[in-house]
Protein backbone atom coordinates (compact mmCIF):
# COMPACT_ATOMS: atom_id res chain seq x y z
CA UNK A 1 0.00 0.00 0.00
CA UNK A 2 1.39 3.44 -0.90
CA UNK A 3 1.83 5.92 1.89
CA UNK A 4 -0.94 8.02 0.36
CA UNK A 5 -3.32 5.08 0.31
CA UNK A 6 -2.39 4.30 3.89
CA UNK A 7 -3.17 7.85 4.92
CA UNK A 8 -6.58 7.65 3.23
CA UNK A 9 -7.31 4.30 4.82
CA UNK A 10 -6.38 5.67 8.23
CA UNK A 11 -8.70 8.61 7.70
CA UNK A 12 -11.55 6.29 6.75
CA UNK A 13 -10.92 4.16 9.80
CA UNK A 14 -10.87 7.22 12.00
CA UNK A 15 -14.15 8.37 10.59
CA UNK A 16 -15.75 4.94 10.95
CA UNK A 17 -14.60 4.31 14.49
CA UNK A 18 -14.23 7.45 16.55
CA UNK A 19 -11.45 7.34 19.10
CA UNK A 20 -12.60 5.98 22.46
CA UNK A 21 -13.13 8.63 25.10
CA UNK A 22 -10.52 7.09 27.39
CA UNK A 23 -6.94 6.13 26.60
CA UNK A 24 -6.67 2.60 25.16
CA UNK A 25 -4.91 1.23 28.24
CA UNK A 26 -7.67 2.45 30.55
CA UNK A 27 -9.61 -0.50 31.92
CA UNK A 28 -13.06 -0.29 33.41
CA UNK A 29 -15.04 -2.37 35.89
CA UNK A 30 -18.63 -3.20 36.71
CA UNK A 31 -20.00 -4.92 39.79
CA UNK A 32 -23.44 -6.42 40.36
CA UNK A 33 -24.22 -5.96 44.06
CA UNK A 34 -26.75 -8.51 45.29
CA UNK A 35 -26.12 -8.71 49.03
CA UNK A 36 -26.79 -6.09 51.67
CA UNK A 37 -25.57 -7.51 54.97
CA UNK A 38 -22.82 -5.78 56.94
CA UNK A 39 -20.19 -8.32 55.89
CA UNK A 40 -21.18 -8.69 52.24
CA UNK A 41 -21.41 -4.93 51.75
CA UNK A 42 -17.63 -4.73 52.00
CA UNK A 43 -16.29 -6.50 48.89
CA UNK A 44 -18.19 -4.39 46.33
CA UNK A 45 -17.45 -1.05 48.01
CA UNK A 46 -13.79 -1.90 48.67
CA UNK A 47 -13.24 -3.01 45.08
CA UNK A 48 -15.20 -0.12 43.58
CA UNK A 49 -13.35 2.58 45.52
CA UNK A 50 -9.96 0.98 44.97
CA UNK A 51 -10.49 0.49 41.25
CA UNK A 52 -11.62 4.10 40.96
CA UNK A 53 -8.51 5.18 42.89
CA UNK A 54 -6.45 3.25 40.35
CA UNK A 55 -8.05 5.17 37.51
CA UNK A 56 -10.75 2.76 36.38
CA UNK A 57 -14.23 4.01 35.59
CA UNK A 58 -16.52 1.90 37.83
CA UNK A 59 -20.22 1.08 37.66
CA UNK A 60 -22.14 -0.60 40.48
CA UNK A 61 -25.53 -2.17 39.77
CA UNK A 62 -27.57 -2.69 42.96
CA UNK A 63 -30.20 -5.37 42.79
CA UNK A 64 -32.30 -7.47 45.19
CA UNK A 65 -30.78 -7.43 48.70
CA UNK A 66 -27.96 -5.21 47.52
CA UNK A 67 -30.37 -2.37 46.81
CA UNK A 68 -30.76 -1.20 50.45
CA UNK A 69 -27.05 -0.28 50.37
CA UNK A 70 -28.21 2.84 48.53
CA UNK A 71 -30.51 3.98 51.34
CA UNK A 72 -29.61 7.35 52.85
CA UNK A 73 -29.66 5.81 56.29
CA UNK A 74 -27.81 2.51 56.45
CA UNK A 75 -28.71 -0.02 59.12
CA UNK A 76 -26.51 -2.97 58.32
CA UNK A 77 -26.66 -6.20 60.25
CA UNK A 78 -24.78 -9.45 60.13
CA UNK A 79 -26.06 -12.91 61.04
CA UNK A 80 -24.28 -16.13 61.80
CA UNK A 81 -27.36 -18.09 60.67
CA UNK A 82 -26.37 -20.38 57.84
CA UNK A 83 -22.85 -19.01 57.93
CA UNK A 84 -20.79 -21.74 59.54
CA UNK A 85 -17.55 -19.98 58.58
CA UNK A 86 -18.34 -16.94 60.69
CA UNK A 87 -16.14 -17.15 63.76
CA UNK A 88 -15.43 -14.10 65.87
CA UNK A 89 -12.15 -13.61 67.72
CA UNK A 90 -13.05 -13.97 71.39
CA UNK A 91 -11.23 -14.83 74.60
CA UNK A 92 -8.03 -15.63 72.74
CA UNK A 93 -9.74 -18.01 70.33
CA UNK A 94 -12.47 -17.94 67.70
CA UNK A 95 -16.08 -18.63 68.51
CA UNK A 96 -18.92 -19.47 66.13
CA UNK A 97 -22.60 -19.75 66.90
CA UNK A 98 -24.79 -22.81 66.32
CA UNK A 99 -27.66 -22.00 63.94
CA UNK A 100 -30.21 -22.58 66.67
CA UNK A 101 -28.64 -19.90 68.87
CA UNK A 102 -28.84 -17.34 66.06
CA UNK A 103 -32.63 -17.69 66.20
CA UNK A 104 -32.75 -16.22 69.72
CA UNK A 105 -33.95 -12.60 69.58
CA UNK A 106 -31.10 -10.15 70.04
CA UNK A 107 -28.35 -12.53 68.96
CA UNK A 108 -28.06 -11.04 65.46
CA UNK A 109 -28.05 -7.54 66.94
CA UNK A 110 -25.29 -8.54 69.36
CA UNK A 111 -23.27 -10.11 66.51
CA UNK A 112 -23.67 -6.90 64.51
CA UNK A 113 -22.50 -4.74 67.39
CA UNK A 114 -19.50 -7.02 67.88
CA UNK A 115 -18.62 -6.89 64.21
CA UNK A 116 -18.93 -3.09 64.13
CA UNK A 117 -16.66 -2.81 67.17
CA UNK A 118 -14.09 -5.05 65.49
CA UNK A 119 -14.29 -2.97 62.32
CA UNK A 120 -13.60 0.20 64.27
CA UNK A 121 -10.83 -1.35 66.34
CA UNK A 122 -8.98 -2.70 63.30
CA UNK A 123 -9.05 0.55 61.34
CA UNK A 124 -11.41 -0.83 58.72
CA UNK A 125 -13.57 1.80 57.03
CA UNK A 126 -17.30 1.86 57.71
CA UNK A 127 -19.63 1.15 54.79
CA UNK A 128 -20.95 4.72 55.11
CA UNK A 129 -17.42 6.05 54.64
CA UNK A 130 -16.61 3.75 51.72
CA UNK A 131 -19.86 4.69 50.02
CA UNK A 132 -19.14 8.41 50.51
CA UNK A 133 -15.73 7.87 48.93
CA UNK A 134 -17.30 5.99 46.04
CA UNK A 135 -19.65 8.92 45.42
CA UNK A 136 -16.74 11.34 45.69
CA UNK A 137 -14.74 9.56 42.97
CA UNK A 138 -17.74 9.40 40.65
CA UNK A 139 -18.49 5.69 40.83
CA UNK A 140 -21.63 5.26 38.74
CA UNK A 141 -24.40 3.70 40.84
CA UNK A 142 -27.49 2.17 39.29
CA UNK A 143 -30.51 1.03 41.31
CA UNK A 144 -32.48 -1.86 39.83
CA UNK A 145 -35.97 -0.65 38.88
CA UNK A 146 -37.52 -4.07 39.22
CA UNK A 147 -36.21 -4.45 42.78
CA UNK A 148 -37.60 -1.02 43.67
CA UNK A 149 -41.03 -2.16 42.50
CA UNK A 150 -40.78 -5.64 43.98
CA UNK A 151 -39.90 -4.56 47.50
CA UNK A 152 -41.82 -1.27 47.33
CA UNK A 153 -38.80 0.94 47.88
CA UNK A 154 -38.73 4.58 46.85
CA UNK A 155 -35.92 6.43 45.12
CA UNK A 156 -36.60 9.23 47.62
CA UNK A 157 -35.12 7.05 50.36
CA UNK A 158 -31.87 6.70 48.45
CA UNK A 159 -28.77 8.84 48.22
CA UNK A 160 -28.55 11.53 45.54
CA UNK A 161 -26.77 11.03 42.27
CA UNK A 162 -27.84 7.47 41.56
CA UNK A 163 -29.46 6.26 38.37
CA UNK A 164 -32.36 3.87 37.90
CA UNK A 165 -32.00 1.11 35.35
CA UNK A 166 -32.67 -2.47 34.43
CA UNK A 167 -30.92 -5.50 33.03
CA UNK A 168 -30.32 -3.93 29.61
CA UNK A 169 -28.70 -0.91 31.24
CA UNK A 170 -26.33 -3.21 33.06
CA UNK A 171 -25.58 -5.42 30.05
CA UNK A 172 -24.69 -2.40 27.93
CA UNK A 173 -22.28 -1.31 30.65
CA UNK A 174 -20.88 -4.85 31.01
CA UNK A 175 -20.09 -5.13 27.31
CA UNK A 176 -17.90 -2.05 27.66
CA UNK A 177 -16.18 -3.14 30.87
CA UNK A 178 -12.97 -5.15 31.13
CA UNK A 179 -13.85 -6.55 34.55
CA UNK A 180 -17.38 -7.66 35.46
CA UNK A 181 -18.01 -8.96 38.95
CA UNK A 182 -21.08 -10.48 40.57
CA UNK A 183 -21.07 -10.18 44.34
Amino acid at each position, binding site marked *: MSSEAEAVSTQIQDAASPAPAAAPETKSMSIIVTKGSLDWAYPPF*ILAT*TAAAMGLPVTMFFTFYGLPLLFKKLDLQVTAAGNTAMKMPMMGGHIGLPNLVTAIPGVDAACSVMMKNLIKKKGV*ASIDDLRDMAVEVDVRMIACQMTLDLFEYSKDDMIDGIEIGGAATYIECATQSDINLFI
Partner: protein
Amino acid sequence: MADHTLDAKGLNCPLPILKARKALKEVPADGILEILATDPGSVADFEAFCRQTGNELMEHSVDDSVYRFLIKHTGS
Protein backbone atom coordinates in the same frame (compact mmCIF):
# COMPACT_ATOMS: atom_id res chain seq x y z
CA MET B 1 12.45 15.56 50.95
CA ALA B 2 8.81 14.69 50.48
CA ASP B 3 6.40 17.39 49.31
CA HIS B 4 3.59 15.88 51.34
CA THR B 5 3.29 13.24 54.05
CA LEU B 6 0.28 11.01 54.55
CA ASP B 7 -0.09 9.32 57.91
CA ALA B 8 -2.10 6.17 57.23
CA LYS B 9 -0.99 4.36 60.36
CA GLY B 10 -3.70 2.21 61.94
CA LEU B 11 -5.80 2.18 58.77
CA ASN B 12 -6.73 -1.04 57.04
CA CYS B 13 -7.28 -1.97 53.39
CA PRO B 14 -8.25 -0.14 51.24
CA LEU B 15 -7.99 3.12 53.19
CA PRO B 16 -4.21 3.70 52.76
CA ILE B 17 -4.63 3.45 48.97
CA LEU B 18 -7.75 5.63 48.89
CA LYS B 19 -6.11 8.29 51.04
CA ALA B 20 -2.92 8.12 48.98
CA ARG B 21 -4.95 8.70 45.82
CA LYS B 22 -6.45 11.81 47.40
CA ALA B 23 -3.12 13.02 48.76
CA LEU B 24 -1.40 12.60 45.36
CA LYS B 25 -3.79 15.19 43.96
CA GLU B 26 -2.18 17.74 46.29
CA VAL B 27 1.33 16.82 45.12
CA PRO B 28 2.67 18.64 42.04
CA ALA B 29 3.88 16.64 39.02
CA ASP B 30 7.18 14.91 39.84
CA GLY B 31 6.66 15.82 43.49
CA ILE B 32 7.06 13.19 46.18
CA LEU B 33 4.42 11.78 48.51
CA GLU B 34 5.56 10.04 51.66
CA ILE B 35 3.15 7.51 53.15
CA LEU B 36 3.38 5.93 56.58
CA ALA B 37 1.29 2.82 57.13
CA THR B 38 0.99 -0.13 59.48
CA ASP B 39 -1.04 -2.42 57.20
CA PRO B 40 1.35 -5.21 56.07
CA GLY B 41 -0.82 -5.68 52.96
CA SER B 42 -0.01 -2.14 51.88
CA VAL B 43 3.40 -3.22 50.52
CA ALA B 44 1.95 -5.36 47.73
CA ASP B 45 -0.92 -2.91 47.29
CA PHE B 46 1.22 0.19 46.77
CA GLU B 47 3.36 -1.71 44.27
CA ALA B 48 0.24 -2.65 42.30
CA PHE B 49 -1.23 0.83 42.67
CA CYS B 50 1.91 2.42 41.25
CA ARG B 51 2.19 -0.04 38.35
CA GLN B 52 -1.44 0.61 37.41
CA THR B 53 -1.41 4.39 37.74
CA GLY B 54 2.06 5.04 36.32
CA ASN B 55 3.37 6.64 39.51
CA GLU B 56 6.85 5.72 40.58
CA LEU B 57 7.34 3.82 43.83
CA MET B 58 10.79 5.18 44.61
CA GLU B 59 11.35 3.20 47.76
CA HIS B 60 9.68 1.42 50.59
CA SER B 61 11.11 0.46 53.93
CA VAL B 62 9.89 -0.81 57.25
CA ASP B 63 10.93 0.41 60.65
CA ASP B 64 9.38 -0.87 63.86
CA SER B 65 6.23 -2.15 62.09
CA VAL B 66 5.73 1.15 60.27
CA TYR B 67 5.96 0.93 56.50
CA ARG B 68 7.23 3.98 54.68
CA PHE B 69 6.62 4.54 50.98
CA LEU B 70 7.93 7.28 48.73
CA ILE B 71 5.85 7.77 45.62
CA LYS B 72 6.88 10.15 42.86
CA HIS B 73 3.87 11.73 41.19
CA THR B 74 4.72 10.74 37.63
CA GLY B 75 1.36 9.30 36.59
CA SER B 76 -2.32 9.94 37.02
